């Protein structure tokens, strides 16, 4: 990369790289665990895309290319920490224990969320760009007031980095020294707009203007993502305040299933990033440094197939909810406007004779 401060400790070829500040703390089994996570989320993402093409999901936002950024950050979280995703963080959801079935419910439009955030200490997908960043900072300020030894993490992209919400969140996080880690997955494309149009400086430099540290990481290096994120979370838990981590990565696929990336970017660019694949470099490390056999690696592929198979079964078996349940969780307490909406919806449903 063009930037000297780019943290990379595992090269695209699967070689260890020295970095003055960071080195991997993980052993063979842990690295294999990260590999397993990445293979599985990539496979379930493929299955979800197929299901969408087959008319079983309304929409899907693929994560291919961003597995390391998400798994590295997601596995750095501790159980008591809390994370706020956007809509592409299926890898983080996986790390938090959200089941693939639960992940797809919102995309099949049978749920407005998909799971209980408290169960997994992980919020539901936020489609409104940048909103979740404010939620995270607010939550982090609550953690501060509780005196809890917890950190908060939130995810957004290069496109959302231009949102006012994100700027406000940075201001509040800095002002209150909130225990929050901002993970900016710069996947180079805000739908069809290149990151170069979002900013004239590296995005992580923006943190400096708000008064907290920013660091750019090779977002396709799961080991670097894990170490940088872990340190930032430790800092937050220990009262050191916020950190902005720019995971420099690439969206290999479409923005969503409604998007056609071939309309706005050239194949040559995709080819370059194929050589930086986040999964292949870990596979190379496991094979060459840890001498793992092909058969051992294949068990992960088979497990991923089983996860995908189960996911398909689960999605096809999903029942549609009672339409009136959409009003259940708009507010914690009854609200006259929502109740009116519920009544009118009930009348409408009744008028359909169903």
């Amino acid at each position, binding site marked *: 990369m063009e930037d000297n401060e780019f943290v990379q400790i595992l090269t695209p070829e699967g070689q260890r790289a020295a970095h003055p500040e960071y080195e991997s703390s993980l052993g063979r089994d842990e690295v294999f665990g990260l590999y397993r996570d990445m293979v599985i989320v990539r496979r379930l993402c493929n299955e979800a895309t*197929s299901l969408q*093409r*087959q*008319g079983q999901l309304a929409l899907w936002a693929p994560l291919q290319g961003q597995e390391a950024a998400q798994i590295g950050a997601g596995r750095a979280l501790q159980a008591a920490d809390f994370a706020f995703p956007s809509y592409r963080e299926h890898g983080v959801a996986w790390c938090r224990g959200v089941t693939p079935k639960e992940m797809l419910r919102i995309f099949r439009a049978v749920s407005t969320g998909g799971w209980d955030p408290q169960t997994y200490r992980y919020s539901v997908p936020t489609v409104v760009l940048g909103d979740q960043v404010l939620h995270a900072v607010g939550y982090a300020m609550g953690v501060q007031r509780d005196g809890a030894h917890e950190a908060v993490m939130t995810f957004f992209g290069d496109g959302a980095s231009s949102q006012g919400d994100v700027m406000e969140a940075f201001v509040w996080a800095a002002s209150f020294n909130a225990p929050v880690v901002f993970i900016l997955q710069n996947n180079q494309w805000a739908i069809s707009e290149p990151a170069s149009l979002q900013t004239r400086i590296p995005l992580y430099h923006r943190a400096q203007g708000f008064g907290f540290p920013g660091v750019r990481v090779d977002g396709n290096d799961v080991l670097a993502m894990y170490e940088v994120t872990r340190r930032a979370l430790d800092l937050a838990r220990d009262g050191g305040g916020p950190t902005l981590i720019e995971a420099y990565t690439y969206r290999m696929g479409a923005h969503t299933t*409604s998007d056609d990336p071939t309309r706005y970017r050239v194949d040559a660019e995709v080819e370059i990033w194929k050589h930086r694949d986040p999964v292949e470099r870990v596979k190379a490390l496991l094979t060459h440094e840890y001498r793992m056999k092909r058969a051992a690696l294949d068990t992960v592929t088979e497990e991923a*197939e089983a996860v995908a198979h189960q996911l398909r079964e689960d999605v096809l*078996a999903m029942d549609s909810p009672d339409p009136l349940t959409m009003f259940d969780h708009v507010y914690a307490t009854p609200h006259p406007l929502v109740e009116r909406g519920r009544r009118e919806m009930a009348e409408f449903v*009744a008028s*359909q004779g169903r």
Partner: protein
Amino acid sequence: MSEKIFELPDVGEGLVEAEIVEWKVAVGDVVSLNQPLVDIETAKAVVELPSPYAGVVRACHGEVGDVMTVGSPLFVVEVAGDTADTADTADTDLAPADSASSDDDGSAPARRTPVLVGYGVEQEDTTPARRRPRASREVATPAPVATNTVAPAPVGLAPRSTPPVRLYAKQHGLDIATVTGTGRDGLVTREDVERALTPSTPTAVMGRGGSGAAATSRFVGRDIASWRDGPLEERIPVTGVLRSMSEAMVRSAFTAPHAAVWVRVDATRTVDLLASLASHPALAGVRVSPLTVVAMAMCDGARHYPGINSSFDDEAHEVVVRRRVNLGIAANTPRGLIVPNVKGADQLDLASMAAQLNELVDRARAGTTTPEAMAGTTLTITNVGPFAVDGAVPVLPPGTGAIVAVGRIAKAPWVVDDQVVVRHVVELSMSFDHRQIDGALASQFIAHVGRFLEDPALALLLG
């Protein structure tokens, strides 16, 4: 073995069609689950469609370049698998079970095809859940009840209507299948339902299997017997209101040469203004309607084009221009048509105009209109909108220069800034006495009234 039909899904949030770009397989090819079969191009993207079934391709619908409608069959795969599988598993329906309407062949499943190495086929506990909605749909058609002679029509054959109208009909215990739609392409409108609910209307008579045929109806200010019960020929004396109406119409029609102009107007701002005024304290107890605004507009038009407020004096060989509007309102009363007028209507503000019009109509309906209230009309409004028609060619009350018919205000497509948008549209049609009023003046006047309705707030401000 069974054949599964794959219907083109909406792959992009609200798309209705897609063009076939490339078939990646041919009939007879063996395909696996999720194997790309065809590339399609939607308005948003070129996408690959992976097969939801493993098996043998039996049909590919559409050639490269064909535009396929979402929901139409795209390909057929004969699924591999043993008989038990195909009989029990129904979880490959392409639409969610509760909305499946066409994908109803009932059998078929590729799900069991072991595409995985080393993993058993999953429990089939999903099957009952998938089948349940279909089963309930099959038994959902009740035996027709006595009051409902029309069995529920299959989807697609049921009369087309809108949800609020269906709800309205349901709330009034009316089976909408019995209502004849008069809207575009047979759409059942709210007015159709209202007519069906009014016992005296022909629609309701037909819709209720003859049970309402005994009802009487109003004609020339009296109740007359129904089609079934009345004599073959009935003679009614011409007296009272009927007599004066008939004489006036004849006098007018055979003395004043009628000509007509009309204009369609976007009355959305009028509708919005009235909605915002509805709760204003200054108008408490006064019903301000679009008709009130038309009345204001006509008075304003008369101020701009005094010639419209004129009459032709045959005997004196003079045209009389009046600089005071006595605004007649044609009222359909139980006793017949009468036209009382608001004296000096051009002097009134909106609230006074509304109050006076309301009072005139109330009196007319109560039968207490005085002869004085009907004398000296100079301009007239007739409101044909409640009869669900768009326009009319009204006959002038004798001694007046113009009469404006106000059609129903209905939502309609309208072009605003080169975009088709939904607006409240009303037609104003005007008959005028062509002896003294020419087409140019009539057109200028009606156009003025139309502009007033298009921006009533501005017109009322500028007076």
